[in-house]
């Protein structure tokens, strides 16, 4: 599946289905750290019931007692993923929000497959949803419903939302921000770097559309802000492109200097290429 086909997949309305298709197509090779109980802590024994996995029968206990017991363990792990999804109006540009929804759910799905707990927050200028998942399939369905039902509108103001999320974040979590960083990036990075106090691993997915840098748009005399509706005049393609590139460079440098994992993604590049890079880097 090439980039174009991946982008085509984004047209599938069902978030769950399109995420699964993307995952099956491209992440089949990625090892999801399958749960084998090695990292799971022992919880209790219970009697075998029809349908239980034979591998989980504790044969030693059977020899001791003559009864068939199944070994149960807690699903909890030490890691938790906190996903922050920007749903401001600017995310509507070029289909960024649909991409962001899919990307967010991909992480939730992977997380869920690993039996990791996850928290997801959807925000614009205030926090719309902040939910900590339970376990099992229900949690993932709930997340899919919450994320897919959200419409991108409102302005970008990440700071108040981050403060609320920060309160509920446990230590040593993965915090993933998916946003186009339309707000003042210094404020965002400051707020995110503040979360590192809890030894969190902060990952930023900075989404952009290539249309934002196209001559067709940047060469226009007037640009209307999608969030504020303000119109700015003057400037030309070269000047504006330079500003955008400079800003992206500053965000990257600022993020890296504060120990944040910064990932810039053009949504036109699909999922495979940027995420492969991301996972490869993380595996090192």
């Amino acid at each position, binding site marked *: 599946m090439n980039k174009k086909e991946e982008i085509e997949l984004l047209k599938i309305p069902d978030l769950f289905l399109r995420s699964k298709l993307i995952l099956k197509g491209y992440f089949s090779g990625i090892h999801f750290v399958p749960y084998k109980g090695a990292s799971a802590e022992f919880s209790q024994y219970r009697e075998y019931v029809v349908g239980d996995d034979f591998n989980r029968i504790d044969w030693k206990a059977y020899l001791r007692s003559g009864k068939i017991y199944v070994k149960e363990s807690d699903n909890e792990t030490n890691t938790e993923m906190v996903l922050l999804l920007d749903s401001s109006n600017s995310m509507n540009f070029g289909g960024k929000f649909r991409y962001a929804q899919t990307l967010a759910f991909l992480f939730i799905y992977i997380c869920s497959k690993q039996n990791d707990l996850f928290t997801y927050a959807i925000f614009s200028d205030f926090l719309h949803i902040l939910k900590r998942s339970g376990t099992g399939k229900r949690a993932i369905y709930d997340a899919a419903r919450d994320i897919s039902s959200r419409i991108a509108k409102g302005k970008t103001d990440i700071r108040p939302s981050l403060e609320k999320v920060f309160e509920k974040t446990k230590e040593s979590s993965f915090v993933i921000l998916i946003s186009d960083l339309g707000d003042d990036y210094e404020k965002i990075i400051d707020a995110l770097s503040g979360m590192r106090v809890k030894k969190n691993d902060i990952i930023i997915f900075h989404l952009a559309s290539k249309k934002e840098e196209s001559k067709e748009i940047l060469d226009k005399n007037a640009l209307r802000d999608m*969030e504020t509706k303000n119109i700015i005049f003057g400037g030309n393609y070269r000047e504006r492109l330079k500003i955008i590139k400079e800003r992206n460079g500053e965000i990257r440098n600022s993020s890296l200097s504060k120990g944040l994992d910064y990932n810039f993604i053009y949504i036109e590049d699909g999922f495979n290429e940027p995420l492969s890079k991301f996972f490869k880097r993380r595996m090192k």
Partner: protein
Amino acid sequence: MRFFSNEYLILLYLLPIVFIILLFLKRLKEDAEYPFTKIFTAKKKEKRFFRSFIMKIIRILLVTSILANAILSLSKPYIKSNRIEHLALFIDKTPYMNYEIDKVNRFIDSLGGKEAFRNIHIYINQKKVKYPLKENDEIKPNLIEKQRVMEHISRTIFSYKSNSVKSILLTDRSFKRINLETDIIVRRDAPKVLITGIGRFIFLYSKDEVVVELTFKLKDKNIGKLTVNLKKGINKINSPVKEFDFVNCLYDSIKLGRGILLSRTNVNEKTGNKFVLSAIKSLDANLEENSDIEISYNNNIKKGIVFSKEDEKYTAKSELFSTDKNFDEYIRNMNKNLEYTSLYKIKGEPIIISKKGEIILSNKDDVYFVALPLDTSKSNFVITPSFVLLMDQMLNRFTGKSSEIVNKELNYRKELTQPYSDYLSGYETPKELDISFVFTFVSLIFLMILIFT
């Protein structure tokens, strides 16, 4: 301030619309949505934003100013001045219009010259000549049709697009009033004796009783002379020669170009119609046997005067031309079906044809109406004043008598014998200065600023 073409001023009302269109249409046209524009309006860029916005407004103001100035320039604004903007002097240089360069210059000086007029234009026979006139500005005399002279004056005055135009026509002919503003000054320096008619009779106009010698240059290059006593007014003298190409009387002479047959036209009249006879008589034509032209219904006669008629029924031209034989039938048949009044309206093309149907002479440019077919003893042929004119013209053309050039010359001389008067309009030309160049200049300056900013 007055405007010559104030109708253009209405365009000024449209300028605000232009302004709004420029302001908003461009904005709409170049407007595009962008996720967040804050990045472009960061502090360090704010100045640039305002500058570009102000520049845009300035550009629009410049465009509207250019248009406004162009409109004002187009409207030809005038302000009060101590001089008249234009003096247009038209000189109708006819053969006897005796204008002298000094005289013209003095005439203009008497009007005030450069002190009274900002621009002085002189036209001699429609050719522009610079003021003051010099010796080599002499223009060959020419008899330009009066209609063309008047058209030229009107067109020239209009071309100035100014309220401040004083126009004068110097001529020796009689012109009807050209317009309200143009003064017509008539000065006649014609000789005392003028040749006003050539033909079987020579007509001479004399201002006084005088004895003169008429000189003819004959076709065979011989010279014929005749001494006559002229009375005051028009004198009718029998032409002593049949053919000549030049005639002179005292200071007046007429060159006829190719030799002109001045003998009376010989016509062989065979119809016996009393009206035709009287028409021929009135035209000074000789009734002679074996002449070149015969008027007849007789089938045996080779030549005759006939009409042709434009009729949709006939497609071939040959069918329209009738010999005197079928013409008779044609007229008769036509009368059976047509009422007199409707026949009167039918256009006819006068021609002279041979019996074989070959056109000897035709006059397609002139249109005559076939006159009412009155009851005559031998035919329905019509003798009316229009027929007499037709016949006269056809006879003249057939014999090559009196070309148009000669007619023009003779008419001019006849006119010089008529009483005349000046026409002074009494119109006080306003003293104004055209300042449209100021607006044009400003418009150009703004245009340059617009281009280089």
